[in-house]
């Protein structure tokens, strides 16, 4: 503030002898421009610094735990962790039950949410002027705003209690699918809207039946948008903890039975947090989760770049 006024005075004093108001205005505008630029740079620097700080501290604390066992062995029990800790060694074991569990949950959730989401998105896009479509769109928006713990409760009541009679992969993936669905619906609609109408007409003018216009022209033309939406939805639910606590609980072993509980990386982080002997594993698990999301993002970019649409 002080600096601004002195700077202004300086400009005014150098300009006043020229007696050129227009020039003065331009100067002050240029000054504001510069101040704005500096402010913008400053805040973006803070943001970037924060990101690097997070990554840096995670790596600093977590890197020593990342080894072969980390990706191949299940989480240790608290006793062996304590033993390792007290003798100053790296905690044995890894998070493979969480990694495979997360992949299992997300894959199953995607298998449910992606086809449904795309179909609903296509429907809304095709009938955008109808009331029914508008209602569905609103419901999707509301669903997107529902707290994930609430969705966990719903899945608990609908699946865990009556269907699988206990915590299960299925219940967890249904909860995640419900969270992914609105994201995929909206991203499908938005990316279909980006396809020029003329392309659709070109296909129709060739006598193409309508479902093929959608499958062979609209969806391929908006492929990168659809892919982006799906990967975004996946990375959103990958870190979810609350709904999984109510639906899959966790599992010290690797599990492939759909009606049995399973672990997940964020669930393990929560467990490590609650066990003073295993705190060191939090950091490495967090590094892994972040790396996984990062790889998904890079993959989606790579796919889009390859498709060049």
């Amino acid at each position, binding site marked *: 503030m002080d600096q601004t006024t002195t700077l202004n005075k300086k400009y005014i004093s150098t300009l006043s002898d020229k007696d050129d108001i227009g020039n003065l205005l331009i100067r002050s505008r240029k000054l504001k421009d510069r101040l704005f630029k500096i402010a913008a740079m400053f805040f973006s620097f803070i943001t970037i610094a924060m990101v690097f700080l997070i990554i840096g501290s995670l790596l600093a604390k977590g890197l020593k735990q990342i080894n072969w066992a980390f990706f191949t062995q299940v989480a240790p029990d608290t006793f062996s962790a304590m033993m390792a800790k007290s003798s100053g060694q790296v905690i044995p074991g890894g998070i493979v039950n969480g990694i495979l569990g997360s992949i299992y949950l997300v894959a199953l959730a995607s298998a449910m949410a992606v086809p449904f989401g795309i179909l609903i998105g296509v429907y809304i896009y095709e009938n955008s002027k109808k009331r029914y479509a508008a209602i569905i769109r609103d419901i999707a928006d509301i669903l997107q705003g529902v707290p994930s713990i609430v969705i966990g409760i719903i899945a608990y009541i609908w699946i865990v209690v009556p269907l699988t009679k206990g915590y299960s992969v299925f219940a967890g993936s249904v909860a995640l699918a419900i969270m992914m669905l609105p994201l995929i619906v909206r991203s499908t609609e938005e990316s279909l809207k980006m396809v020029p109408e003329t392309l659709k*007409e*070109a*296909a129709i*003018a060739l*006598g*193409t039946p309508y479902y*093929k216009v959608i499958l062979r*022209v609209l969806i*391929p033309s908006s492929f990168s948008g659809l892919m982006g939406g799906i990967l975004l939805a996946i990375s959103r639910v990958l870190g979810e903890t609350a709904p999984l606590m109510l639906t899959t609980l966790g599992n010290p072993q690797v599990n492939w039975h759909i009606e049995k509980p399973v672990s997940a990386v964020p669930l393990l982080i929560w467990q490590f947090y609650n066990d003073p002997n295993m705190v060191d594993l939090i950091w490495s698990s967090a590094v892994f989760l972040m790396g996984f999301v990062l790889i998904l993002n890079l993959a989606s970019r790579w796919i889009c770049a390859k498709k*060049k649409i």
Partner: protein
Amino acid sequence: MTEMNDKKDDSILSIEHLSIRYSDDKLAVKDVSAKVKKKTITAIMGPSGCGKTTLLRAINRMHELYPDIHTEGKIMLGDENIYDMSTINLRRRIGMVFQRPNPFPTMSIYDNVIAGYKLNGIHLKRSERDEIVERSLKNVALWDEVKDSLHSRGNFLSGGQQQRLCVARTLAFKPKIILLDEPTSALDPISTAKIEDLLVELKQEYTIILVTHNMSQAARISDNAMFMYLGELVEYDSTKDMFTNPRDPRTEAYLTGKFG
């Protein structure tokens, strides 16, 4: 206006009392009757908003994409009413080229040419496909320019080349009639001249109906011309007669640049 219609001869398409409205109040096409002669270029002219596009799209029923549209009258292709045909059959026989070039960006040049077959699930042998692609691209004088990059996407093609690719895509079906809606309005003069030459060339095998609001284009390449005004077909005559001796004062006003 009925001058052309009186000459009972080799017409391929007969529009009979066609009226079209988008919504309840206003007719976009008013009781149009016209016979289109085989293997000619027929131009549809008129100021913008007079119904040219609506009339053209009615000929292969593309206008039905607008949900509330209402159509009366009929269009006979040979002795079949097109409104009784399946749109798939109809659109194979009456192809369409649009104002802006619209090749499929996700398909290679090769696949764009045979897109009609692919999208309709019509299976072709490799040799048949190759033959159709080569013939169609040669027809539009694009073969030499793209024969080495058939299997790459056409994004590097110029606007004029893309438009010729779209004509090739239409020709691949060997249609009887090709409809074109201001196909050169987005192109530069050199590409425009190439498309015009192409249309004159294609006339030997195909019937061409061309919407244009460029009078000199109609004069240069069309054999017959329709003049539409406010949804009405005001005058339909041989291009030469219309340009030298318009019968209706509204046609004359248009041709002398009084409106448009």
